[in-house]
């Protein structure tokens, strides 16, 4: 095999965070590092991956079967890597395969095979597989026509989640609270789904939402790159959730129970590359459900890469051409291998960036359809500092967890205002400020948790931030007055010497950047804030 075709992700749309450009660029570079000639097809010239130095040859063409076939006929690649272009790349690759085009030109599909992808993405096949390996999935119903939908209107429990199959970012889905809402949203979902299929699912509103990023090579070796916990409990699309890495409120037994489940799933699917597993966890027991699996690089894997320093797309590309995790170097330490699990010695907070400032009339309520158009990620040694750093990075009016007033609040109404209560219960882009405001007004953590279902751990941290500096409360780490230093993101919590200059600012005593600069004065330093 000499020449590899990579399908790009096309236009960046609402529901994405440019993650496929990030992943695709890494993958192209990774394949060229291995000595392959890389041909890229992408319809979007405004990407990094279409830069001249990323691939050997770039075709800026529509991402359709017709144009792709013409590129294949002209370039005659030996292999096709479809799992790095998001859903667009996957859908195109499966059409090329189904129409016999790959076979006709002798193009081998690299990485995770299409039947594995189908098993992960087709709800029915996925649920059957989960039953086989004894992983719990929430009660659900597959609907493929309006008449099937009608028959279920009085059967399903409300609230109930509508998820159209094969759409980007959960387009057309949502939580419905009545049979009327289900009828409306369900029919819309059927129209939007590429296969005219939607799933209705028992709502797990209020459960913890946890994700694992897992990798598997062709020899069956599996690792988890990291896990992430959503501050927003189940009910909000993970792309619209505030997310922390690693998880903060799971004990070791819970962490590894869910890690183990994620590994069993990637094994059963026979993924070769990266995969994202989303789980719902009961906050009061060991119960959990497997919610969804993304059998490819995703927005979450891009976040996990940046959060840990572990280059998921780079490693996935090398796995696709047959390398094992143990043969791939850890590009950060250069002293260890890609077959390990990153140890973080910091906290990562991601906050989505929504476009509501540009669409003032838009519906700001968040649900299972992603509305964010970007995200900020901040790293620090404490949750408070990372959260505040992320808020500053959002470039919104608020520079911190400033006081906030829900719309329509009567200022004479006092602390227990219904408007504030509603703002806690209904997730929107402003809920973080609503949580802070309620705590500032003296609501108890227990009460805010009861209304919002946000874990008390996060609420106490937010309470600490809003109280900081006020009488009787010591200053918090986020306001530390110590001189700022730069600490390194090294994948190993300092255990091994590392060589990639990736730093974050924090209030601590020792500066990691100084020693690196001493050793290599010309080193490029990438620092976050």
């Amino acid at each position: 095999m000499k020449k590899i075709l990579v399908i790009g992700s096309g236009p960046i749309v609402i529901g994405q965070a440019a993650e496929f450009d990030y992943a695709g660029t890494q993958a192209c570079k990774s394949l060229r590092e291995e000595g392959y000639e890389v041909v890229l097809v992408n319809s979007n010239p405004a990407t990094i991956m279409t830069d001249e130095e990323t691939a050997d040859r770039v075709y800026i063409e529509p991402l359709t079967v017709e144009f792709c076939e013409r590129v294949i006929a002209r370039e005659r690649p030996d292999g096709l890597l479809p799992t790095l272009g998001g859903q667009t790349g996957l859908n195109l690759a499966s059409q090329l395969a189904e129409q016999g085009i790959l076979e006709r030109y002798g193009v081998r599909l690299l990485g995770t095979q299409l039947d594995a992808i189908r098993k992960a993405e087709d709800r029915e096949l996925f649920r059957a597989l989960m039953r086989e390996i004894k992983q719990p999935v929430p009660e659900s119903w597959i609907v493929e026509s309006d008449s099937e939908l009608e028959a279920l209107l009085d059967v399903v429990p409300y609230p109930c989640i509508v998820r159209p199959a094969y759409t980007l970012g959960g387009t057309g889905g949502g939580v419905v609270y009545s049979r009327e809402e289900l009828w409306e949203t369900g029919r819309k979902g059927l129209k939007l789904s590429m296969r005219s299929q939607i799933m209705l699912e028992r709502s797990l509103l209020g459960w913890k939402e946890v994700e694992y990023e897992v990798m598997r090579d062709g020899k069956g070796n599996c690792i988890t790159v990291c896990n992430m916990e959503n501050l927003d409990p189940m009910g909000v699309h993970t792309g619209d959730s505030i997310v922390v890495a690693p998880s903060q409120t799971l004990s070791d037994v819970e962490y590894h129970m869910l890690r183990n489940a994620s590994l069993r799933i990637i094994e059963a699917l026979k993924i070769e590359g990266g995969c994202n597993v989303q789980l719902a966890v009961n906050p009061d027991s060991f119960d959990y459900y497997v919610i969804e699996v993304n059998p490819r690089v995703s927005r979450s894997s891009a976040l996990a890469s940046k959060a840990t320093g572990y280059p998921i797309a780079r490693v996935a590309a090398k796995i696709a051409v047959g390398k094992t995790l143990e043969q791939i170097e850890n590009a950060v330490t250069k002293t260890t291998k890609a077959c390990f699990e990153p140890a973080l010695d910091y906290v990562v907070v991601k906050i989505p960036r929504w476009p509501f400032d540009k669409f003032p009339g838009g519906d700001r309520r968040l649900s299972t359809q992603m509305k964010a158009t970007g995200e900020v990620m901040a790293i620090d040694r404490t949750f408070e500092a990372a959260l505040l750093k992320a808020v500053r990075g959002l470039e919104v009016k608020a520079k911190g967890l400033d006081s906030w007033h829900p719309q329509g609040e009567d200022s004479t109404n006092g602390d227990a205002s219904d408007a504030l209560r509603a703002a806690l219960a209904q997730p929107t882009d402003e809920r973080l400020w609503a949580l802070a405001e309620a705590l500032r007004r003296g609501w108890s953590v227990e009460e805010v948790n009861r209304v919002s279902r946000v874990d008390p751990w996060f609420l106490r941290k937010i309470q600490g931030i809003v109280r900081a500096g006020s009488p009787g409360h010591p200053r918090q780490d986020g306001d530390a007055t110590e001189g700022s230093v730069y600490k390194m993101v090294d994948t190993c919590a300092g255990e091994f010497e590392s060589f990639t200059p990736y730093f974050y600012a924090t209030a601590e005593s020792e500066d990691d950047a100084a020693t690196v600069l001493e050793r290599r004065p010309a080193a490029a330093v990438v620092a976050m804030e």
Partner: protein
Amino acid sequence: MKAYLALSDGTVVEGRRLGAEGTTDGELVFNTGMTGYQEVLTDPSYAGQIVLFTYPLIGNYGVNDDDFESDRVQPRGVVVREACEAPSNWRSTRSLDEFLRERGVVAVQGVDTRALTKRIRDAGVMTGAVSTLGPDEALAAARAARPYDDTDFVASVTTRAPYAWGRAGREAIDQPAASAKVKMVAIDCGLKFNILRRFASLGVRTIVLPATATADEVMAWEPDGVLLSPGPGDPARLEGVVRTARDLIGRRPLFGICLGNQILCQAVGGRTFKLKFGHRGANHPVKDLLDGSVTITSQNHGYAVDPDSLVGTGAEVTQLNVNDGTVEGIRLEREDATSIQYHPEAAPGPWDSRKYFRAFVDKMERAAR
């Protein structure tokens, strides 16, 4: 209240009190796991040490009544960046601070744990002390501390009297093992409860004997197999246990975990050496040389087996650490003895190596027939 951490090289850092007041000393080691502090704090292999957690937020999910690996806090001190005052988890019964105070353990928080980790990585493990009395007291204690390698910690953590462990936990030692398919003797150099729990879940009744047990005393229990347990300290000090293991080789199937691996290796003539800063964490890749697979393992050891010392002993090295190439597992094929340097019982850490329990139980079942 302020607290100070001092190292034997003269470094003193100021932090805040966590846990009890007073002064404590020990060998300063770091653990890179992001969860599992309760298991680490009750793991007998940390006896004599001060554990520094590299993950900065410790205590988030509190301390519960289930996740104990022994009855007491084993390390002599704890160092964290930030201890959570108000933990959140459905099983939590108290905060880390309350737990450490209740158990009288001196600890410090609010220090730059990454800077200290790098210090240990570069200079190797060293003695240290934590004190709430003052920086001078901390430094004096660090300098006066008895070197870790000079102490027999196994003697302090092993059980005084034999006990039994079955499906329901601790059992009366004289209770007839009606429900158990298999009877195993564990020589306790610092057992973790989860080893006993894992075996019990597979139908094994374990008789736990003190580390001073002789081969005859072990055989008197008519076991179907013998477990050489993990434990603290320099394995080269453990001549008695090594002799017992040597006398048992070939008589019953043997399985060694962690220190048990080092004991089995010494029993056939191998030697151990001290690692610069050990392996302590939940992310260590181990390669199985027999099938080529790589597994992520939970580790906690400061010494390793010298592979050259095993040449000609009949022991075959079956597993190696991917990061530094140290010995992670051996087997004596003819004598039915195997051992691994890492922790298949996890607690804390990944569950990926549980198959070793099943494999040893299968061996014991065959031996029982």
